[in-house]
């Protein structure tokens, strides 16, 4: 797309931020497509590792773009990627927040919100699929994923415990 990786980072993530209905989790497949398949910025494994690091870090999950940006172009890349992912949507949020009271009851507003729910659900499901393909190389990893899905669905356990167990199992060399 462009020789300068900073411009490519800024362009891709600014565009992506406007389509990420459902937040960071919905944008994972597009990030993967661009970073791994189109731009060859990182390997499949490096992408999966970045996802893991963003999950165990405090703060919003969107912080994965900071990791991708750093990987591509160091500190400048981290700053550009983060600003591009947050900037356009923050400006939009600021503008819309001032007019929200006027249309919060409007029928078109309610239709848009209801209509976007299934789209973002499909996108988040696609995220899980793309990441599972990167992460579950063998039956043990797939087993961890399966058990975690059930535990996560059925209980309200703090995810840090689940990550800790996953990390220890990974360290033990089964995966």
């Amino acid at each position, binding site marked *: 797309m462009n020789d300068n990786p900073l411009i490519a980072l800024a362009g891709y993530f600014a565009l992506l931020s*406007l*389509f990420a*209905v459902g*937040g960071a*989790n919905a944008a994972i*497949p597009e990030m993967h*497509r661009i970073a791994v398949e189109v731009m060859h910025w990182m390997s499949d494994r*490096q992408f*999966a*590792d970045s996802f*893991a*690091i963003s*999950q*165990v870090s*405090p*703060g*919003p999950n969107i*912080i994965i773009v*900071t990791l991708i940006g*750093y990987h591509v172009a160091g500190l400048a890349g*981290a700053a550009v990627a983060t600003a591009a992912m947050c900037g356009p*949507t*923050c400006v*939009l*949020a600021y503008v819309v*927040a*001032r007019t*929200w009271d006027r249309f*919060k009851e409007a029928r*078109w507003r309610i*239709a848009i*919100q*209801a*209509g976007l*729910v*299934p*789209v973002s*659900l*499909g*996108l*988040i499901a*696609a995220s899980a699929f*793309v*990441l*599972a393909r*990167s*992460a579950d190389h063998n039956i043990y*990893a797939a087993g*961890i*994923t399966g058990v*975690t899905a059930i535990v996560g*669905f059925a209980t309200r356990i703090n995810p*840090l415990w689940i*990550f800790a167990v*996953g*990390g*220890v*199992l*990974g360290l033990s060399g089964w*995966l």
Partner: protein
Amino acid sequence: MSASAGATTPSVTRPKLSELFRAFVIVSISGFGGALPWARRMIVEQRGWMTAEEFNEAFALSQFLPGPNVVNFSVVFGSRFGGAPGAAVALAGLMGPPLIIVTILAFLYARFGDLEVLGRILAGITAAAVGLLIAVVAKMAAPLFRKRWDWAPLIAIAAFIGVAIIQWPLPWVFFVLAPISIALAWIKR
């Protein structure tokens, strides 16, 4: 500003900019696996800056907008209490500490990412994190598939196939499916 909410907010106090900043710093560093419950606890239960209804409304707006919900929420909340400076302060509080932490982690990963031990630990964490993501999908899907909106699951499945299987760019899938889905939601109501 929120003068229209005057009837419901006699007990609601207005935070100063420094308090706004500190509150979002705390929300951000406690927010593993989603900052929303922490934001709600801080803003509604501990500080009394919003009633539960106001919080739900501000959060509905944040979900309505594209991009990370919690980031949107910090801007919506900050701007309501402090205009543009309030929005900037809340956003800085939310993003500042994680940015510093993650930059350090990115540096360490660039240094030691090739270590086999680290790779094994991260592989285990990824496998678990994917499981949690599947749990999120299941929780979101349950009410959608239970309702009588027969079109909603079809849209979700189409979005999944477009992005995950055919691997179209996200904007394409969005521009095809979002208008259809919104039109169906409009008609069905």
